[in-house]
């Protein structure tokens, strides 16, 4: 009987905490539907009159479809490139057991310790010199910053894939690339999902790097556009909150459909 009471108490505490966790989202959402004066009159309650006008304005000001498309394009292409090239590299490093391979693997792992701020200044200067401060340059940079962790994760999985598979395929006449693409890469799928999730969360939300690399109007990603938008409407909370709500919607939709994989991916990525 005591156990049951305790479980009930834990459940109750959990429920209260969950409400507390959701409160910021609730406050953002209800105030995004209020008229400007209602926010000042009553911040905590529901709107007196629900208005979609804030959303319409925010949608226009954020140039939402184009901004969303930029974010999708940059995150999508970067993640696909990171997945394929990191898997290839990890495959080469795990199948070739030489001093060079161990050294290269060590370099990739060690690169994870380097904080972005310590390379950012020369990076931007050098890419600027070669006219590469654009979307293509940004995607290439994401490969450089993202490959270390990805190679590390793939390397761990590849150790568990028996070499006899490679050899059997080779006897059947497959070349190196075919072995990788048709035999190994499909087996890495669960890890590819993890690598994809970890990288997409990071790249989708990244602000600092794109703010230094892509300045041009029309090519901004969501965080970038939102930063300018927020600066413009800093005292106009009804618009700012509608903009914030809009920009969170794609993430919430993705989370709704893939929360199991996302949480599993995060756990795998952090624990290894």
């Amino acid at each position, binding site marked *: 009987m005591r156990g049951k009471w305790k479980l009930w108490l834990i459940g109750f505490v959990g429920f209260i905490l969950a409400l507390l966790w959701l409160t*910021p989202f609730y406050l953002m959402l209800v105030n995004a539907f209020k008229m400007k004066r209602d926010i000042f009159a009553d911040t905590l309650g529901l709107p007196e009159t629900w208005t979609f006008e804030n959303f319409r304005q925010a949608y226009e000001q954020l140039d939402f479809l184009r901004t969303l498309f930029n974010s999708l394009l940059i995150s999508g292409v970067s993640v696909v490139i990171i997945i394929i090239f990191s898997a290839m590299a990890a495959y080469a490093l795990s199948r070739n057991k030489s001093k060079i391979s161990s050294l290269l693997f060590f370099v990739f792992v060690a690169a994870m310790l380097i904080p972005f701020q310590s390379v950012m200044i020369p990076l931007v200067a050098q890419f600027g010199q070669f006219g590469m401060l654009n979307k293509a340059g940004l995607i290439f940079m994401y490969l450089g910053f993202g490959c270390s962790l990805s190679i590390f994760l793939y390397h761990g999985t590849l150790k568990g894939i028996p070499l006899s598979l490679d050899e059997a395929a080779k006897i059947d006449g497959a070349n190196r690339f075919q072995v990788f693409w048709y035999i190994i890469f499909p087996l890495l799928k669960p890890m590819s999902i993890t690598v994809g999730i970890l990288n997409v969360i990071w790249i989708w939300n990244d602000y*600092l790097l794109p703010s230094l690399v892509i300045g041009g109007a029309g090519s901004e990603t969501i965080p970038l556009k939102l930063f300018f938008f*927020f600066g413009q409407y800093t005292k106009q909370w009804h618009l700012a909150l509608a903009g914030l709500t809009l920009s969170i919607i794609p993430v919430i939709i993705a989370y709704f459909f893939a929360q199991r994989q996302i949480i599993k991916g995060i756990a795998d990525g952090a624990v290894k």
Partner: protein
Amino acid sequence: MRNRDAAYWLFLTPVLAALILVVIVPLIYGFYYSFTDWNGLGTPDFIGLKNYMDLFTDKGFLDTFWFTIKFSVAAIVVINIIGLSLALIVTSKLKSSNILRTVFFMPNLIGGLILGFIWQFIFIKVFGAIGDLTGIEAFNGWLSTTDTGFWGLIILTSWQMAGYIMIIYIAYLQAVPEDLIEAAKIDGANSFQRFRHITFPLVAPAFTVSLFLTLSHSFKIYDQNLSLTNGAPYNSTEMVAMNIVRSAFTENDMAYAQAKAVIFFIIVAVVSLTQVYINKKREVEL
């Protein structure tokens, strides 16, 4: 695959090219620039250790540094306590476990920039409204002083990161064998004793991972700092990452900013390596 294989190098070329051009070359150039008077344009002149000497007498930078250290220590403690508590709640066989886990983890998916803006609204408008409603003075004027800025940042990052740390603790908690707990129960161990002598030692490796992650994350924080306080009031809530960005791209003091960045790199690397080393050693001893 042999080294001479064209395939070996072909497989490695894309990531090697990216790592070298994006990380390694800028890192080396960064070291070099930090000993010069480079301003982003033209040829840099070598000035030896001057940038580094200036750093140690730069009160603005030292204050920033001290603020970052205080923030990191507080963040590590708060985030780990909350994260572990959430994990214990979620793993205690509740019917609502899944929903709770989903909710607690949610802030983590959204970028620090957006979360910072949401909390700016809460601290300024909502706290203000609560203060007016209840007459409690402590709710007024958040983010307008250094202390409220500090705790604002702690609340924001804890809310965001506790769910992440929770996931790590859950992974280890679920690996604790059920029969071990049952056996201890039969032997008459109460729930605190079971936690202290069975769960805790088995979950110890999770502390390695979590402390390491929270430390490096809090020390390097930028987005949240930018969107919540932007250093206000008077740069007193500015952290190292933001200080480097500002001195490089607002003040155009590239070489000086790079010297800060080198110090930043050394500290992050040393702290990370030490932490891994200490925790590895402790794990072996257990």
